[in-house]
């Protein structure tokens, strides 16, 4: 609660808060040849509440980027439903879907690859405006300059090219482009992972300011749990295509209810030698199993330090259920974590 007060956004009431996006039992399988499939996202349900920042963490290959693309409907679901407000996006096709996408924007990881090197910054930022024929001529230019100012760049830079900018500045350009259509939801897919520490802080602060100013809702994806925890109201942890825990970001750290979350937290080095040397690493044995043939029962059982084998962990899949108020976890033994 103290956290929300500092950020200036009201803490969403646990169940009463309006959800902006609702994901219901979404599955995404990619064909992997010989009739096999990569189970990238395997039956996940959650909601993103209006005005909040929902953090999404997990290691490479856990399905977090695929999930981002499903939420924005850049790729179709194999099964399941994605709602935006009351509208079921997964039912829409073509022009209708395109119109809704205006409200769902993305910021990408690589500020070098995500901007066309042969377009001016002005044209890059205005491309969404052109696509939807929002404004033209002098007004278009005004809007571009306004957007540049919003993200902290010189408004007269609109005729420059991406190569003239540093990584942090390019990420600001990407943010300006994402804001051009006044979206409701912005999905930040590893948006700060490629930046230097001192620049990361600038962009994190900018995202927080913009959220307050434009009442944005964020789905913030990163593998760096310390940044995710910092920026998010709630944190969602994924493992091998499944959500294993969703909780308030302070509670995630103080009392995780899933052993994977605990291991992930213990692995992040704290920049303080006194603290860091006293911390105990929850060592995970083995490697992340293949998402083509995920383990039976709880997918984490092959690496779990508290699994009881074979019953129930290797046999029964634990449901994602409320362990405390507004704190969900998928573990048979969450009280032992």
């Amino acid at each position: 609660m103290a956290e929300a007060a500092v950020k200036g956004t009201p803490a969403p009431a646990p169940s009463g808060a309006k959800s902006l996006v609702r994901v219901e039992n979404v599955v995404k399988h990619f064909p992997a040849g010989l009739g096999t499939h990569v189970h990238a996202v395997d039956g996940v349900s959650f909601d993103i509440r209006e005005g909040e920042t929902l953090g999404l963490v997990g290691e490479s290959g856990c399905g977090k980027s695929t999930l981002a693309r499903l939420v924005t409907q850049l790729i179709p679901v194999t099964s399941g439903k994605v709602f935006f407000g009351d509208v079921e996006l997964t039912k829409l096709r073509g022009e209708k879907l395109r119109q809704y996408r205006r409200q769902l924007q993305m910021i990408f990881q690589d500020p070098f690859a995500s901007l066309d090197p042969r377009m001016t910054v002005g044209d890059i930022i205005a491309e969404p405006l052109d696509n939807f024929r929002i404004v033209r001529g002098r007004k278009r230019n005004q809007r571009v300059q306004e957007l540049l100012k919003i993200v902290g760049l010189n408004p007269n830079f609109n005729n420059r090219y991406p190569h003239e900018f540093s990584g942090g500045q390019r990420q600001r350009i990407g943010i300006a482009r994402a804001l051009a259509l006044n979206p409701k939801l912005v999905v930040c897919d590893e948006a700060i992972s490629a930046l230097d520490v001192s620049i990361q802080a600038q962009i994190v602060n900018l995202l927080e300011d913009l959220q307050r100013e434009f009442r944005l809702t964020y789905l913030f994806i990163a593998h760096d749990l310390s940044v995710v925890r910092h920026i998010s109201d709630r944190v969602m942890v994924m493992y091998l295509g499944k959500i294993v825990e969703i909780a308030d970001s302070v509670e995630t750290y103080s009392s995780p209810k899933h052993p994977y979350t605990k291991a992930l937290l213990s692995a992040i080095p704290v920049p303080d030698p006194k603290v860091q040397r006293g911390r105990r690493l929850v060592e995970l044995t083995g490697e992340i199993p293949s998402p083509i043939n995920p383990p039976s029962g709880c997918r984490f059982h092959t690496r779990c330090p508290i699994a009881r084998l074979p019953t129930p962990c290797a046999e029964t899949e634990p449901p994602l259920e409320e362990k405390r108020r507004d704190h969900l976890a998928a573990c048979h033994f969450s009280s032992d974590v």
Partner: protein
Amino acid sequence: MANPILQVRDLRTQFATEGGIVKAVDGVSFELYPGESLGIVGESGSGKSMTALSLLRLVPEPGRVVGGQVLFRDQDLLQLTSEEIREIRGRDIAMIFQDPQSSLNPVLRTGFQVDEAMLAHGKPKNQARARTLELLKKVRIPAAESRYKDFPHQLSGGMRQRAMIAMGLANAPAILIADEPTTALDVTVQAQILELLADLNRELGTAIIMITHNMGVVAGLCTRVLVMYAGEIVEQGPVEQIFANPQHPYTWSLLKSMPRVDALRHERLRSIEGMAPDLLRPPSGCRFHPRCPFRIDKCFTNEPQLEEVGPGQRAACWVTMDRARKEMGADELKDIRPGAGSNVHPGEDR
């Protein structure tokens, strides 16, 4: 303390580019003591990797080490012939890199590549193979015998980095230089690799130079640290001290700008405004002055040298954080804007 095993004096590495000379490493001096673990931290372009590559004369074209000394066992590595330095590389001083994928040859079996590190220094084949198996076990690769025959693509990222470490340790070097060895890995794997390096450092007494941008990695593994900015060391000293009481505004800002996973409250991050300087035209005076909240007039014109600021701790700053705290309200600053604490702005106060 024992005598240093490696002494670097006034190291200078430059790149001749179309735009002019880039001074990537500009007068870096430090010592490495036997068995210690020294961190070199800095952001991209600070010269930390170039410093490491310069020690073994591995700087890529068009870069060149143009000055200084690297003293190892009474010889200057910069003066050796290319045959002589090749003898040192991998035998006395080994290096591991960020991306184990591109450091391993994809068409050779992993085990053989570890063998090669020893064959290159004259170890007989059968002995090399036995030692490789021992090393693969030492770096905790399960089923070492079968992994020996695997090609790199059959191993996970963490396993490949373990194989690289095995290769680095093959000839029991006195020094292991690790250049961002965990940056490409997931955090749980990173934690395992760091623990492995710490154990090897303790058990084998191999001195480690850890190049990283991650202050958390330094906090966990290193005993001393050098902080680099724009090709120079701006602060150095024992890790506990540097973290508890940094004296250079850059070190201080860096620590303030990182979110901590153990933080219990959400506080706005104090970001460092501006960006890293262009090394073609580095700023006059102190190179950090364009971004420094505590700059004074002198910082614009005179370059500070590293000076003792505490036991074993040295910083290159005209102001230092002790004074910035006392006189400029450093602890209350909300934003780390240039001149925020000292109110010195070019064109206004000057």
